[in-house]
């Protein structure tokens, strides 16, 4: 149903690698001292989803953690953290998109406005993300990062009218599961992917009769 999920997991893996090669481009106009606590507490409300008063929980799906890169070695497959490579490389601040890179992450399609890799990835710790106000954010809390720019969507999400869900509308009767931003939106190409409709009605009134005689009238 949500095909976007699996591909997002894959792209998550690549997020860390992107960081390594990207240079750090400071966001102009960002106040480093900013009100970092505000964003975090706001989102704690719906990331936690704790139930009370006999109500079932709303669970928001979250990334398992920082992405990893799986590399085949003679000893078997090894999962590498982003920092494995990025700790020993110096960020190149002049790189802004994957196309600027010399190696790694070059094939990763990137189309997320005019922001650059290090707008979101943390050049001081590539296993984390970073807000515009320099607050470090864990990968599991990626929605806090998205919300700093996409306030309209974040507010709708907070009130349960943005993003897919499943389970119960009535939380006194059962739990609900909600999508995370990155379940549907690839962070590197957040526009929702184009789709091909797969299920169309076969209504006899929709087809000119001369082509429909053979098929019979159902």
């Amino acid at each position, binding site marked *: 149903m949500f095909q976007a999920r699996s591909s997002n997991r894959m792209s998550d893996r690549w997020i860390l690698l992107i960081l390594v090669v990207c240079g750090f481009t400071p966001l102009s106009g960002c106040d480093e001292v900013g009100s970092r606590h505000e964003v975090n507490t706001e989102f704690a409300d719906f990331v936690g989803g704790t139930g009370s008063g006999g109500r079932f929980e709303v669970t928001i799906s979250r990334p398992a953690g920082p992405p990893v890169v799986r590399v085949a070695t003679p000893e078997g497959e090894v999962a590498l953290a982003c920092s494995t490579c990025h700790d020993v490389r110096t960020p190149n601040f002049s790189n802004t998109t994957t196309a600027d890179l010399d190696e790694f992450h070059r094939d990763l399609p990137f189309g997320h406005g005019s922001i650059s890799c290090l707008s979101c990835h943390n050049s001081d710790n590539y296993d984390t993300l970073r807000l515009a106000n320099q607050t470090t954010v864990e990968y599991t809390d990626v929605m806090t990062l998205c919300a700093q720019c996409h306030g309209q969507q974040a507010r709708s999400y907070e009130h349960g009218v943005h993003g897919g*869900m499943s389970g119960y509308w009535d939380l006194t009767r059962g739990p609900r599961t909600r999508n995370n931003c990155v379940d*549907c939106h690839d962070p590197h190409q957040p526009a929702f992917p184009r789709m*091909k409709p797969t299920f*169309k009605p076969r209504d006899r009134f929709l087809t000119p009769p001369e082509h429909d005689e053979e098929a019979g009238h159902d």
Partner: protein
Amino acid sequence: MTEQSKGKTISLPVLGSVSRRTAMKGVGATLGAGAFAAAISPLRHLADTLTVEELMQQHYQELSADGKKKVIERLEAETKEQYGADVTISDPRPIPGTKFVYAINLSVCNGNGKCVEACHNENNHDRDTNQSYIRVLEMQKGTMDMEQGNTTYDHEVPAADKFYMPVQCQQCDEPPCTDVCPVQATWKEDDGIVVVDYNWCIGCRYCEAACPYHARRFNWKTPNVPAAEVNPDQGYLSNRIRPQGVVEKCHYCLHRTRKGRLPACLEACPTGARVFGNILDPDSEIRWLLENKRVYVLKEEVGTKPSFFYFFDS
């Protein structure tokens, strides 16, 4: 014919003394009986499939609890016999203090049609016609006339300069469809859902003609649903397999929603465009939406007062 009359008459032996009037009565009665037999002859086909219990079944709202139980047992047995599927038919009643309202975000809907498919599978629709309670209309941006919408597009979506508007039963507060039903086989329940008693419907299709949203469907044939694909979680007023010749419609998945679950089309939507909830709950998502988003209803001018809203992100 008496002895006396025999002696007096010399007319044709066959007619004897029978008057012309009596003869014409006989002819009329014979023709009448013949015409009646011809008129009811289609019923002979029914005798194979229609049981006495089914023919004599009362209206849903007049059934006793015991009678309802027997009807449901019979329907479950019939489904087993005709479709080879073990199903459970429940009859959930409205939750007190609940009125269901649906909303769709047209800024987000991309017309992929997963809701149409989910409805098809959830509600045991006829596989041959890909029947579904939902139609997604491809609309020209800048227009609002649903009659100009196109349902047959099969290109990649969203297409440039188009928007997509799923249309299903709007569960009107002033439903024209229930007003026109000559046998009261369809009515609006306390939680706002307009339902059909498929065993009371006579298939006249007045309701289909009365609906401004083209939301009602007629079962032209007995639905074909392979046993493995039959959804066994069924409701008497919702997704049990409908007989041929009756009208059906979206019922907000009442066999799910009256047990607290979300409708199948909402869970299937990959874009998250659908919002569902109880408008009587001031803390509900749908309530916040109606108070804070720019919403509109379809064909507001016809005065049907839909419980179904469309909105755009602003």
